[in-house]
């Protein structure tokens, strides 16, 4: 394509008519480095590799500035497809976390399914067995102007997730769903996958040492390449406009869990073979950026070049142009680099033992080229060289320094007169689509497959699995972010998301071992959106740093994987800042974990975490009064750390029998959920005077300041109090588990809330189903 000698308007016109997203200056810099006009396939390769999605060109500097990605337990930081932390001397947990927002807005079912499909590949290609997934979801207002479309998106996304995840055979053990009008035209579909692998059996996503010198084979495995997803990464890096929807639909990938299920089993056979033979391979999934991204990164990260023949790649059609073959995002594909002597056995595993060609028409494993030592990224097609560029220049990407400017908001605290009786207010909060039981959704998910599930959705603040039979250790998983806090303060939204995700795993007795972040924001070319992004990153980094890894003072909980999703905006507005955090917790023995359902009448209920006047963004303000407010919950780092580790210790010492963290809906919702999570036959009688604060009753009940409610084991009160004091925490015994199915709260000698659990259950279980009907 002619670039050299043309003026800026001419270059711009040429790029756009070819369907490229590259800027004029980017195209010129490529021509300059090449010393000639680039070919069309070369430009598409650069377009892919330099996209926001593949290169993090706007975000990289900020992430490097703030995030802590190393730590004593880190085996693999964020540089590959998934991060890895140690469980013990033998086993490791692998985690990856991504967004699939734009595709899910356009085609909810396929978009969300592809999200799950991509994230499990990221984990599997590290040599790991994928053992669980989680799905943080954000949808628009189900009762607002766009309600029909919002519900269509929500239903399609949930269907896509279960249809893919259930068929694949990986349990969905955690997730959250928030409805907020800022997502009316931009839903968020984040996906998290975790796997387990032995430390000595991790497979890298790069060409192994010696691959170039010995001319290792490059093999593509899986679905035949078609044009689906062509332009996908560029699409994920631009704002959605309604008139583009039709055009963007072509960028959606088509997932196939059935083929994936068989591929995973064949991969396992491959991994076993390489272990047996002691051969090191490179293995990577083909995700965003397709063939180009996987092959160039695998070569470049080992300092090698690549010489690839696109004719040898199995394709669904022979009529595809070279740039489509290279950059399409056809799903269910992997790339393998192995010594040539292993190749015949690899082909046998995929093409015969696991019979890919009969499982899916046209699927197979094909040798497509060699690793080289010349540092060039070369592709050939129909006898011609279609691309010959420096592999380092192609993969290094570019960086942009974006401007930031605080977003101006005019939020204030409302003046409200609370009713004397708070029962109706709590019922409203419990029925809110954001607080009510998530059962309507998680019953679609196979939470039991693999037989490892110990704690499932709805039973506690985090899911828990015992992923290796014969071992006692467990992996806990939770996700969190509150967009309403993000609207008020991106910094505190970031910090709170980390603190809550950690509280969630602590609430079952697991210690937070690692975090991942999926950062969902608007257009970074707009200074306000970029400011929100930086504030969130600062907040979450500060929290990860201040809350410490268990057993190590002043050591941050490492962030080993993550993803940045910009351009979540449309002409109607941008999404509320959404730094979605996942936390992996570890517990030595799954049998010690506790759930949130009340266990026994007469047990004492303790509050941890004093209540503050922090109702900004709260469910109470929004649901009962229709206002956002301003006093967003802050994270008091030292207090938070003490609370988290006090809870973990009290569970380890078997002093508490149930726990639940305080978040959306405040202490009132927390207490109600503990009563409703079990059989609904046990209630609570709580005196708010002991909540350690002179706030009014409604603020005590609904403030979303962080904390926990604990049910103390019979006759362990003294020991628990001693433990809490040891952490410098106030002792706040609010009352007891009651035999009657009723939640009662008193304040200053008056009953301020009396709610029978039957009524509460109706409100709590109906809210989400109603919103998604």
């Amino acid at each position, binding site marked *: 394509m002619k670039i050299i000698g043309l003026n800026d308007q001419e270059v711009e016109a040429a790029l756009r008519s070819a369907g490229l997203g590259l800027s004029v200056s980017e195209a010129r810099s490529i021509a300059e480095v090449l010393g000639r006009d680039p070919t069309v396939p070369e430009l598409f390769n650069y377009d892919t590799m330099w996209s926001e999605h593949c290169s993090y060109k706007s975000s990289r500097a900020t992430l490097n500035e703030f995030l802590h990605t190393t730590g004593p337990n880190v085996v693999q930081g964020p540089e590959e497809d998934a991060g890895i932390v140690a469980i013990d001397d033998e086993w490791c947990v692998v985690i990856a976390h991504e967004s699939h927002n734009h595709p899910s807005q*356009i*085609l909810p*079912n*396929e978009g969300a399914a592809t999200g799950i499909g991509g994230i499990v590949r990221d984990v599997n290609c590290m040599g790991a067995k994928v053992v669980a997934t989680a799905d943080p979801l954000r949808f628009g207002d189900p009762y607002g102007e766009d309600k*029909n479309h919002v*519900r269509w998106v929500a239903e399609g996304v949930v269907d896509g997730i279960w249809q893919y995840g259930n068929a694949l055979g990986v349990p969905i053990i955690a997730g959250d769903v928030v409805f907020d009008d800022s997502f009316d035209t931009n839903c968020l579909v984040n996906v998290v996958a975790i796997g387990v692998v032995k430390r000595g059996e991790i497979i890298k996503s790069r060409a192994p040492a010696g691959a170039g010198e010995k001319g290792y084979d490059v093999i593509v495995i899986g679905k035949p390449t*078609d044009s*689906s997803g062509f332009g996908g990464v560029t699409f994920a890096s631009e704002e959605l406009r309604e008139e583009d929807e*039709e055009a963007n*639909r*072509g960028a*959606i990938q*088509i997932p*196939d869990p*059935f083929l994936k299920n068989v591929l995973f089993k064949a991969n396992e056979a491959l991994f076993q073979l390489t272990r047996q033979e002691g051969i090191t391979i490179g293995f990577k999934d083909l995700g965003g950026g397709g063939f180009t991204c996987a092959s160039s990164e695998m070569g470049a990260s080992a300092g090698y070049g690549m010489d690839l023949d696109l004719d040898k790649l199995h394709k*669904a059609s022979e009529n595809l142009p070279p740039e489509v073959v290279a950059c399409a995002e056809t799903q269910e594909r992997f790339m393998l680099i192995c010594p040539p002597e292993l190749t015949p056995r690899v082909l046998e595993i995929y093409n015969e033992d696991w019979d890919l060609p*009969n499982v*899916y*028409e046209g699927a197979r494993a094909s040798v497509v080229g060699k690793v080289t030592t010349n540092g060039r990224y070369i592709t050939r097609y129909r006898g011609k060289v279609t691309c010959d560029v420096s592999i380092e220049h192609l993969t290094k990407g570019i960086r942009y320094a974006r401007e930031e400017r605080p977003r101006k908001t005019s939020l204030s605290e409302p003046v409200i007169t609370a009713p004397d009786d708070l029962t109706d207010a709590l019922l409203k909060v419990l029925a809110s689509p954001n607080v009510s039981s998530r059962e309507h959704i998680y019953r679609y998910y196979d939470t039991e497959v693999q037989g490892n599930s110990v704690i499932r959705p709805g039973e506690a603040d985090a899911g828990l699995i015992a992923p290796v039979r014969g071992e006692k250790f467990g992996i806990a998983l939770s996700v969190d972010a509150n967009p309403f806090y993000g609207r008020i303060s991106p910094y505190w939204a970031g910090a709170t998301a980390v603190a809550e995700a950690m509280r969630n795993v602590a609430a079952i007795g697991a210690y937070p071992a690692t975090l991942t972040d999926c950062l969902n924001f608007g257009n970074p070319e707009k200074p306000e959106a970029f400011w929100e992004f930086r504030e969130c990153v600062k907040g979450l980094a500060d929290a990860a740093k201040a809350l410490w890894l268990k057993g190590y003072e002043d050591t941050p909980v490492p962030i080993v994987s993550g993803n940045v999703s910009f351009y979540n905006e449309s002409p109607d507005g941008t999404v509320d800042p959404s730094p979605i955090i996942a936390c992996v917790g570890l517990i030595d023995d799954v049998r010690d974990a506790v759930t949130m359902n009340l266990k026994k009448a007469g047990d004492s209920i303790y509050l941890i975490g004093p209540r503050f006047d922090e109702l900004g963004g709260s469910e109470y303000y929004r649901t009962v009064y229709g206002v956002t407010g301003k006093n967003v919950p802050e994270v008091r780092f030292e207090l938070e750390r003490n609370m988290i580790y006090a809870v973990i210790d009290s569970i380890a010492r078997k002093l508490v029998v149930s726990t639940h963290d305080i978040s959306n809906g405040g202490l009132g919702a927390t207490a109600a959920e503990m009563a409703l999570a079990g059989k609904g036959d046990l209630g609570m009688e709580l005196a708010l005077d002991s909540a350690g604060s002179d706030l009014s009753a409604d603020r005590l009940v609904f403030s979303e300041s962080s904390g926990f409610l604990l049910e103390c084991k019979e006759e362990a009160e003294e020991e628990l109090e001693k433990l809490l004091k040891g952490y410098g925490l106030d002792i706040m015994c609010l009352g007891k588990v009651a035999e009657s199915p009723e939640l009662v709260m008193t304040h200053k000698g008056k009953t301020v809330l009396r709610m029978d659990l039957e009524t509460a259950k109706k409100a709590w279980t109906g809210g989400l189903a109603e919103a998604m*009907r």
Partner: protein
Amino acid sequence: MKINLRVWLKIPDAEAATVKNTLRRRMGYEAVLADLGKERLWSIEVDDDVRDPMDLARRLARELVNENKESYIATVDTIEFEEGYVPVKVGLHIEDGEAVSALNRLRNRLGFDMVRGVERSVVWKLALKSERPEKAAEEIAERLLINPHKDFYEIMT
């Protein structure tokens, strides 16, 4: 008045490929079954006084057809198939929960008050090399395409 939407996949139809593969490789129809295609069929009963049924068909298709991966043809009252294959319609004779909820969604959530009923079926298009293609199609339907305890079939020509 009945609006018929014949809907087919623009992308490869993995289900049709599997059914074809099973018939040819596992059930002895290698020589008989030349090809097999699949369509979804929505038959939507609407009020007789609808003025512009084709426009209504287009609006219904927006809700029932996923245009990223599917195409459709709409017809009113009639339904015709091309030459070269035997169309076998397969539907449920037990209550079709999906059709019931499609009807509820169209009427109650999306405001299509003129919709009276929704039927959903699959049309298998069997290209057969046989002296008596309809007989062969019946056999294939009974041996594989239906479970008689929930499905019915109908040769459409």
